[in-house]
Structures are given as C-alpha cells and as structure tokens.
C-alpha cells in the first residue's frame, strides 16, 4: 500500500498536470466516494464529496469551497469553507431541550428543516475567527450568566456544552470523512496533497478551544503529531483487546474501512463455549463476565455463524472441513481512545455506555452548573477530580471525555461508510449507538441523511445566487488583500478592531477591476515566500536538501515581486552554491528597497562571507542609488 504521504509528494510535482486533468469534470474517487464540482460565479468552485450514509444511496457529505481566482494555476488557489452537510442548526425544540440541565434525551428529530443555507463548520481563510467567538462566549458565560442564578447558570452552561459537543461531533465526522477520502484518493485526487493536509490539520485543531490560533507553518507538525498519536493508540488498543480476548477465551475481530488501519474492534463469544468455566479479566474490557452470564445461555439476540480453519483463521461462510461457531457479539470498541479501548456498545447492556456518559455529564452539570464551582475559586474540587480521573485512568477507565466524543462521532461515520457488516448487525449497532447520545441537539442518523440532501440543495442555490457565495468570496478576497496593502501594524489594528467590535467591523480593501489581479499577485508572492521560508529553515546547506532549479525560480519570483529580502539574504548564507548565491545577489539588487539594502550591507560586513561576495555587494551598493518608495517587506 502506498502511504498517503508518498501520494502527497508524488502528486505535488504533478500539480500542474493534475489541475488540468481534474478541471474537466466531476471525478470519481473509487467506489466509495463520488465528487461533484460546481462552478461558482466569480472564480470559485464548490467541491462536494458524496458517499453512502446509512445505506441510503449516495448522500452529499462534505462540501468545500475552493477559490481558484478563475484560473488553472494551483499556486493561487485557496480553500475557503468546509460544510459538513448533515450538520444543521438545531430547531427551537432541540435548543430548548438542550438548555434544560440534566436532560440527556433527544426530543423528536425534525422531519423538515435544513432549507436555510448551511453554516460552514470552519472558515479556512480565517480559522481564528471561531476561536474569538468562543472566547467571547466563555467570557459572557463567566461574567454575565454565571453570577446570575443557579437556574440561568446551569441552563446556559448546559446549552453551551451541548452545542459545543454537537459542533465537535460534526467536525470529527468531517475529519474522518476527509481522512477516508485521503486514503482512497486515486492518482487523480480531488484535493491536492497540500489542500488535503490543510483541511485535516485545521479540522483537527478545531477540536481544541484555541487550536485554530496555531500558525499556518505549524500545521504540518500538528497533523503529524496527532496522526502519530492516533496510530499509537490504535496499535496499543488493538493489542490490549486481542490479548484480553485470548486470555478470556473470546473472539477478537478488528474492523477497518478499506485502505485504512483498524479503528474499531468487536469481541464475540462462541455459543458452543458457553457453560464451560473460563478465566476472565474484564479490567480493560468494561463488560461483565460472559462465562457467568446466564442470559447468554439462552441468547436470542443477534448472533452470527462463522467458519474457521484449524489455525483459527476466518474462512468464507459455509466452508467445508472447517470449524464452525455461532458467535454472539459482546461489545464494540473504539481504538483511538488514549491508553485504553473505548467500549462503545455493550450488546448485553445498552444502558451501560450511556450510563457512563450521563453520570459524567451529570457530575459536570451539578458541579459547575448548579453549584457554580469555578476552576479558580474552587480549584480543590477540580484538582480532586483530576486526581480521581488520573487514578481511574491508571486502572483502565476511559476518562477522556473529548476522546470519547470523538470515538462516538467516528463510529457513527464508520458504520455509515462500511458496507461489510451484516445488515442486521449494522442495524442493531445503529440502534444502540442512537441510544448512546446524550445530546438533545443531535439528530437521528436517518434524519441527518434527509438534512444532508436538503442542505446541499440550499447550498447549491446559495452558490448560484449573484449575491450569495460569490459575493461572500469577493468580500473575503478584499479582506485578504489587506496583507499586501498595509503594513504589519495596520493589520494588527484591523484585527483588534474586528475582535473588539465582535466581528461587526471587518476591514476590506476596495474591489474593482484590479481585485483578481491583485489577489493573484499576492497569493503567488506568498506561495514563493512560504516555499523559500521552508527551504531556509530546512538546514544549513540548501543545495543538499533542495533541487536548486526550483529554489532559483522562487528567488527570481520574490525579486520580481520585490518582497522578502530577509529570506533571500538568509538563503545566501545557507548555500555554498555559487549560482544560487549570484541569484540571491541579483534578487537583493533588484528589490533595491531599504530592507534589501540593509541586508546587503549586513552581508558586506559579515566576516563569514567570502571577500569576493563582499566586494560584489560593495560594488552594487555603491553603483545603485536607493529606490524611492517602500517595499521589500
């Protein structure tokens, strides 16, 4: 199997060709997904991933808006918004229910709705926007609602927790889907490797309160860390379950979507083995001892006959000369939870996983909502709670609520996308998963399918309206343009004003005929600057680690655009390649801004720079008068 990163790398080099190829028409992504591409007036496109959801034909799952500026160059493309289409704004009844403390049930899901234009789960052009809104909401809660009364405090907190949880569930669903899409991308992918990477990293960080304040250049690290953590957790949990199954005489079945590693696992017991004494260690399994469970002896629930060879390997159904057992499902586990597998379904006790969630939520509602304990004033409670969580975590309890929420969201997605399950088993699991939800804002899966379709239609309509998506993109471009029109101080001031006015004021440059050309120029400049930044940061001798041709091309590009002489100077110091050095000198000379002249002066006075280069700088500085005007920031 070719790893996703290798695919990313290979595809990057062919980016130009790729864009041309994809631009032709909608692209199929294997059998699992289908992509629809809808042009949006003004030079954007709406990319929608379709898949199966709940076995209900092709359902639109995620839409992403790509701002292409109407051309075929990938270097100036920007991803703007992500919509998870089965995520909709809750209706009034749901909202009211979610504001009732200790109410952990779903009211009837809306049969209609979703006709409004859906809200994106993430704005990729301004990921921090959501963070500041959260910060404001928290401040409002803390300073306005919390001091009011127990009733207001607990209901507002309950509402906020539920809506945050809901957003997280759908963010994770979007992420899981994109990861699947990434794994199944063909050699003609829908999203370029960099785009896919950006999408996944931002969605990952969106799960954290301040995650989307992380700088763009740290996305790589964030994504790698998280995927590495997930892979490690999966491996560990896979082994825990396999070994425990072995010890307890159970059957272990890892579950994976095609092309991906196992993300879930089932434990089964053979009906034929029941009634015989057997060891059992349930510490990390979270289920009761099946060998002492009389209910299993007269089990009438779901079971499945399976065939095994002499080595215990699973065979196709009905294989002759094999061992056959009637297997009863005991539990389904998520493997991504840190330290221990997370029991998601207990086939003998539907209430147990739900009970754990309800207990946890009730504790939180009571402590923070009703009693009004605060992290600062009542730190001892939270310290005690953390201590308790630590100890129970050491004993194998799944204490990480955020991870549990993620696992819950993943398993919904998993069951929706996987068609290898026996229909009855799938139905049984879906039923039990629906029971697991404690969030009144959530809809049943069947409702979500309907919502996804209606919301997609609403989004399409919005995309075609002249004052719809196209207008929104145009306004975003005008915001984007502030980066090259104004200096750093002005940009900070605009941001402060934006945050201070709670988003009411956003500075935008004027549009006009030149807008597209200006944005195009800015994006290409940024592309080259980011490339050179990466080159410079990669090590002490760039000619060892990078192909010089591309580096020289980028140096020429930044020189043409008159930007980042600092990077060019750094590059000069980090190379022993005379041709590149000469290119850097020419670039600094061409930029000829105060900043570039300052860099040249520094290099001229640097004893570590060879005399012949210092002489060259000296000659250029004395022969060229400083240019007027600013530039070269």
């Amino acid at each position: 199997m070719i790893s996703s990163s290798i695919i990313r790398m290979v595809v990057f080099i062919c980016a130009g060709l790729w864009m041309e190829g994809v631009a032709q028409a909608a692209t199929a992504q294997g059998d699992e997904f289908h992509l629809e591409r809808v042009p949006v007036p003004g030079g954007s496109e709406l990319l929608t991933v379709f898949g199966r959801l709940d076995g209900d034909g092709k359902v639109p799952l995620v839409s992403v808006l790509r701002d292409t500026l109407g051309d075929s160059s990938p270097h100036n493309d920007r991803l703007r918004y992500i919509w998870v289409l089965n995520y909709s704004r809750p209706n009034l009844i749901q909202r009211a229910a979610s504001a009732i403390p200790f109410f952990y049930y779903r009211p009837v899901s809306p049969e209609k709705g979703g006709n409004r234009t859906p809200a994106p789960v993430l704005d990729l052009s301004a990921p921090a926007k959501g963070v500041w809104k959260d910060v404001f909401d928290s401040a409002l809660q803390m300073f306005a609602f919390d001091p009011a009364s127990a009733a207001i405090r607990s209901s507002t907190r309950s509402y906020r927790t539920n809506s945050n949880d809901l957003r997280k569930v759908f963010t994770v669903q979007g992420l899981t889907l994109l990861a699947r899409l990434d794994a199944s991308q063909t050699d003609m992918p829908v999203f370029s490797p960099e785009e896919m990477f950006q999408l996944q990293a931002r969605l990952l960080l969106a799960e954290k309160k301040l995650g989307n304040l992380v700088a763009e250049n740290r996305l790589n690290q964030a994504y790698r860390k998280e995927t590495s953590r997930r892979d490690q957790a999966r491996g560990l949990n896979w082994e825990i379950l396999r070994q425990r199954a072995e010890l307890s005489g159970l059957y272990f079945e890892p579950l994976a979507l095609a092309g991906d590693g196992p993300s879930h696992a089932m434990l089964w017991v053979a009906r034929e083995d029941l009634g015989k004494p057997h060891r059992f260690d349930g510490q990390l399994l979270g289920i009761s001892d099946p060998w002492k469970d009389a209910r299993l002896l007269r089990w009438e629930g779901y079971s499945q006959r399976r065939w095994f060879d002499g080595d215990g390997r699973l065979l196709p159904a009905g294989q002759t000369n094999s061992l056959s057992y009637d297997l009863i499902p005991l539990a389904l586990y998520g493997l991504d939870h840190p330290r221990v597998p997370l029991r998601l379904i207990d086939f003998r006790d539907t209430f147990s996983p739900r009970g754990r969630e309800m207990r946890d939520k009730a504790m939180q509602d009571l402590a923070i909502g009703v009693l009004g304990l605060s992290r600062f004033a009542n730190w001892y409670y939270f310290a005690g709670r953390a201590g308790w969580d630590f100890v129970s975590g050491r004993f194998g309890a799944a204490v990480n609520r955020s991870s549990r929420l993620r696992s819950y969201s993943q398993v919904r997605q998993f069951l929706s996308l996987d068609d290898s399950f026996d229909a009855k088993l799938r139905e049984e699991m879906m039923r039990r998963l629906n029971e697991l939800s404690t969030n009144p804002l959530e809809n049943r899966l069947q409702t979500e399918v309907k919502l996804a379709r209606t919301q997609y239609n609403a989004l399409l309509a919005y995309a075609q309206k002249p004052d719809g998506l196209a207008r929104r993109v145009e306004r975003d471009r005008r915001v984007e343009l502030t980066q090259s029109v104004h200096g750093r101080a002005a940009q900070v001031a605009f941001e402060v004003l934006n945050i201070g006015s709670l988003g009411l004021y956003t500075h935008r440059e004027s549009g006009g005929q030149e807008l597209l050309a200006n944005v195009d120029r800015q994006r290409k400049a940024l592309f080259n600057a980011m490339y050179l930044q990466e080159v410079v940061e990669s090590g002490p001798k760039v000619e060892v680690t990078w192909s010089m041709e591309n580096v020289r091309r980028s140096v020429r590009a930044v020189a043409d655009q008159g930007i980042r002489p600092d990077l060019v100077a750094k590059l000069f110091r980090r190379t022993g390649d005379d041709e590149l050095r000469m290119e850097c000198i020419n670039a600094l000379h061409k930029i000829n801004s105060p900043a570039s002249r300052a860099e040249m002066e520094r290099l001229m006075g640097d004893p570590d720079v060879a005399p012949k280069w210092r002489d060259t700088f000296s000659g250029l500085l004395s022969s060229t008068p400083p240019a007027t005007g600013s530039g070269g920031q």
Partner: protein
Amino acid sequence: MRVLFIVLFGALAACAETKRIVIVKLDGVPAGVLERYMAETNPRTGKSRLPWFQYIFAERGVRLANFYTRGLSLSVSSWSMLDTGRPTQIKGNAEYDRYTMWVYDYLNFITFYFKNALKKGVDMECVETLDDLQQPLLIDRFPYGAVHQSYQLFQRGVRWKTLQHMLQNRFTTRPIKELFDEWQIGIGIDTSFQAQMETDLFANLKKPEKVYLDIFSSDYDHIAHLAQDPDAQLAALEKNDAMVGRIYTAIQSSPLAEETALIVVSDHGMNSTEGVYSQGFNLVDYLGTAEGGGHHVVTNRYPLQAYRLKGLFPFVFQVFTPASETAYLEGKAEQYPTAMLDPDGNERADVHFRNSDLNVLQILYEQLRRGMPQPLRRAVLNGFFEVVDRHRDGWEVELKQLEAEMEECKSEYKLPPGPAEKKKKFTTLEKKLGIDKSYLRAVNQRERFTKFIAAYESYVRTMRNLMAQKRDGFDATKVKGDDLFPQRAMGDSNTLYQLQNYVVGPGAQGIVLDGAGKLDWQRSFRRVNYFDLFLAIRTRNNVQKPVAVRPVDFTAAQAGNQAVWLSAGPDRQLLVEWRTNGAGKLELRCLPVVNLIGDAGGGMHWDPGVWKAGLPLELFEDPGRTTPPEWLNEWHEEREWLRAVHRTKYSNGVIGLYEQFHRTPVKDKFQEHRRRLARTDMMIFANDHWNFNVRSFNPGGNHGSLLRVSTHSVLMMAGGARTGIKKGSVIEAPYDSLSFMPSVLHLMGRDEPNLPGPLIEGLQ
C-alpha cells in the same frame, strides 16, 4: 602524571591522520530502511528523502552494506560490543543473579539519574558491570578532557548542565507565539533535549582538544516500537538526517575538519512491517497458570496487566507477579518465586527457573510437615535426603569456591569502604580532569561489591544449613522452611534433563510410593518439558495473515560447554557447536538432530537428523545461503559462516547463538562467578511479528531476535581529506559489531591488536 599523559596523547594524536572522531549513535535504525529511503527521491525537494545521508555517506563516504549486530539484536548487548570491541559479557537488557535475584537493570535511566545526583553512582549500570569486569569502553581510550559523550545507554556520568540549559533555552529563547503553538500541538521535551545535546556537541567541536565526540538518538527505535506507520518512521529518520547534516556542517567549520571522521552506527535493526501489528504473548501470565507450571514470576518492570498506579513507580527493579494457580507455594510469591523473566527487546525471552531439585525438596519438606502414615513419611524423608545427598558434593565445591572468591575480593578491594571515604574533597583542577568521578566510581564499586557479597553470604548460609541437616532426627516441623531454602533465589542452573522434566508441583495423587515402598519419583511429581510446552502454545485469535498461530519460533538452551541446542519440535532440532582450532581460531558447525534428551547424569542423547526445511534458522531452504547444505555440517571459521549465511532470513544467527551462549572468561574469579550466575536456563525466540513484551505493548515493531531484519545495522563513515576515508564507496563484505572498534581505532592510528574483531577492509 595525568597532564603528562595528555601531552603524550596529544603527540600521538598528532601523528595520526584521523585526529578526531564524531560518532552518531542511532538506536535501532535498520540498514535496509535507511538505504531504501536514501535511494528514494522526495518529489517535493527533488532530492533524496534522506538528503544528508546521501550527500555525506553515499557521495562522500563509505557505507557498509552488510553490517550486523553480533548476538541478539538487543540494545544493551549490541552497544556493549560496539563500545568495547569485545564479545559481550552482557547477554540481555536485564539480567538476574540466580543466587541473590539481583537484577541488573541496564535500561533503568531514572534510577541512574537519581543515583548520580545523590552520588550513589556515577555511571549507567551497564557501564558499572563492564567496569567490574575490567572491560574499558572506547571513550576510556581517551583522556577525560578529550571526550565529549552525550546522554546514552553506556553513559559515564551525567552532564546536568545539558538538562539545565535545555530547560532554560526551552522557555527563554523562543518567541511566545512558538510556545503557544507548542502548547496547543503538544509539548515535545525530547526534541528540546536532542537540540540541547546538539548544541553541546557543536560547542565542543570548536575545542581542538576534544578528539572523541558522540551523540545518541533513540527517535527511530522509540517510534518504531509504537507504530508501524511508515510516515512516522520516516519522520524520525528525517530528524536524524537533519541532525547529521547539521553535525557535518559544524565539522566543516571546526578546527580539525580535515582530520575528523564522522561515523554513523546503529546497534541493531527493527522488525516493523507496514500494516502488521507485532503481537505480544504474555509469558508472565502463562507461566503463572497451571499449564505453564504455576510459577511466581520475577520481572524487572511491572507488566501492563498490573495496569495501576504502582506501574508508575520508576525505581522498581524487582517485580513479583504471583501465579494464578500455584501447586505448593500459595502466598509465597515474594519469598519463593520460581521463574525469572527478561523479555525485553521482545523478540526473545530469557527464562530462569528455580532449580527443579529445590522444588522437589520444598515439596517434600512441605509433605513432611503434614501428618502422614509412617511408611510414606519414611519414604518422603529418604527421598528428601536422597536429593540433598545427590547434590551435596557439588554444592560444597560451589559454595567453597564462592566463599574463597568473596574473601579474595574483600581483601583486594578493602571492603567495606569507610563512611568517610565518600566525603573526600577535590580541587577544581581535579574535577576538571575527572579525578573526582574516578574516585567516586571506585568507592561506589566497593560499596556495590560489599552489597553483592552480603547477598551471596545469605545464600551460602541457607544452603549450608540445608546441607547440615541429617536424616536421623530430622523433624520438618521444627525447622523453618526459610532456613532450608534460600528465599528469592533460583539456586543452580537447571540441566537439560531438569528442563525437560521440570517439577512444578506434587503429582495428581500427591506423593505416592512404588511397589517396593519407595518414593515413586515419576508419579509423585507433576513434571513439565518446557521445550515442548513453549513450542505447543497456539493462539485462538489469528487475525493477521503474516503472523503465525504459534508465538514461539524455537527454543534454545546450552548443551554442554560448547554447543547450543535449538528445538522447533522433536524432529526439527539443530545443534550449533563451536571449538577452537589449531590456529586458535573459533570454528562453528551446525548439525540437524532429532529427539535430543538430557539424562539425569548431565549427559544428552540424540539421533542424527537430516537437513530439511523447517529446522530452526531455516538454513536449508533459504535461497540467501551461498553454500551447499552439507557445508553446514562441517567446521568453518566464523568469517566463512558470516559470508555464507548473512543474507539468509536469520543472517548471522549461528554466530549470534555462539555469542549469546558462550562466555569469554574474565580474569577476576569473583566477577567471573557472578557472570556465570547470570546465565539463563533457556531462551525462547518469537516467531516473526510476535513478541514477549509485557511491560507495555509494542505493536509497531520489535527486535531482539536473530532475524536479519532485526540484526542488520547501519555503519557509515565519512571524513576530511586527511582521514583517507574513501568517497562514494560501498563495502559489500559482511562484518559484525566486533569490527567496529578496531576499525575506528585503526583510523586514528591507535590499533589494538588484541581486539578480536577483524578490521573492516576498504575504509581507506
């Protein structure tokens, strides 16, 4: 005197072409993986995926295509051979003393740091062990002031300043935004630590007096154990690559650039395959079951099954896991454990069992304490003393020898050291020259010896008490078991016969008499053949195609003084034999055998076998073997063996087994005795993609076996013009760990002809 030495050393160094070596030690990096990524082009950069390795070593240096760890692919023994240039005296990542149950916990860094901080120790335990055996390290060839050693396994002393600077730099030299991002992404102390080690190295590269410098990285080993994801593993190698690039660049601008050799070496490989989880089999748990013998088991760390708070305690070195079903030692897990296990490294486990006859004696003693008919009592009493008498002479010789050696040690080292000895003050100059550390090292060694001797004396006392018992008048109810059976001791090693007939408890009907009214030795005890038992283990859940249903590949045990017996079943056995030829050179051969059994007298019998597929090491069927099968039966020198089989699935397994089971004697008799007592009863080798780790799970990959994927290691060198190291050269001839040290010393013009490994040809 020391100053004079430095001057002389400086003069000597001036004559050598290579005046300085910088060694990059990469834990667990497999040569095959490194080479594969070096050859691949990164489409984003247009260069190799590991551009610095490619630039420095493929284009400007020498690479060894077939460099192997000798012996098992375990970190401690592998680094021991690389760092000493001698056959390994350390045979595992943890070792146990059979008489005292002392655990040589070679990988316990936390204890080392604490001991160092409290001046209870100076060096890592593996270094202390080598010091006790008077085996100097490579760094010991250079004066204290000429060495810069990083944090690593065979570490002498702790440079606390590295930690201090790391913490300072972490928070004071970085922008707040960067710290914020890191907080959100996850704090990585290891990266800062590695960066600080590099900074220290760069600072020392500027000092011309430093002629030995090294840096250690375990990034790859760590991640590959945890995850088989190739992206994560490549990321670790990229980190190593960037580090090597920075070091190379720093060398270029250092004072001795032209005379500096940059060397990259790894201790072993790693068995990690994308899409395959390495499966663990819990031997601790298994040995505690009735089927496994009902043993209370000692390990050096808490098994993961003890998934609880005490698993966090870092200073633990002896963990007693009670048997789930014990036949006669209920509630005595801490007094009388009967098995000790070192599964670390994970593709193999070292198993010690308490001497089977000590089990017999204790079972009979417990019977004697109960009421029973007179004839049975007489028979049991006779049986008890029959066993004691059978061993009496052997024990007497053994204990006398040990006592004499301890006395010699006490007088030679003037034990115990006085309490005031540690308080000695040192001048700044003495500290600069490392004299304070040498002194403390010596005092600590004497304290250590004192402790060892006290523990052995306790064992000797109890054994003498047992031997002093007389049949006439022996009343088991009046003698405490603790006075007869040494607690926390395994006694003498088991013979092959004992391991094939190991007594794990009374028989199904208890102690019974035969027709003649004597103890029925066969029916009175439940016996286990451990070789067959381990090989018979099969698992129920076999969900990965490439993973066999049997966790155990084969077992290995010493068969006489000059052979090791490998068994994959009664008709699939191999004897690896060794001898020294007329020219004083080691020779080895392999013989297929069947039905090998040990006899009670210490001998063994077998029937000759034939070469066929499925024998341990799979030499017959392996297309990588370059000789006809009959060649394997003949005596050949080890270089010939290495050349013939290094490309097979088990690469240099034949030599590795010799290295593991043969012990090169050391001069000091007491130390020699101690090493002998650390010898394991038997080894179990895991099948491909199986492991025996119990401390935590290592689903990503493992090492420790003889499989080529685990033993194939990295060795690359590049140097300035005056070092004479070839450029762009690949050495295809196979070499192992023992060639590393002599070749490095040769580069520096400091040849030591008494080192056993051959020089690597073609470096210069």
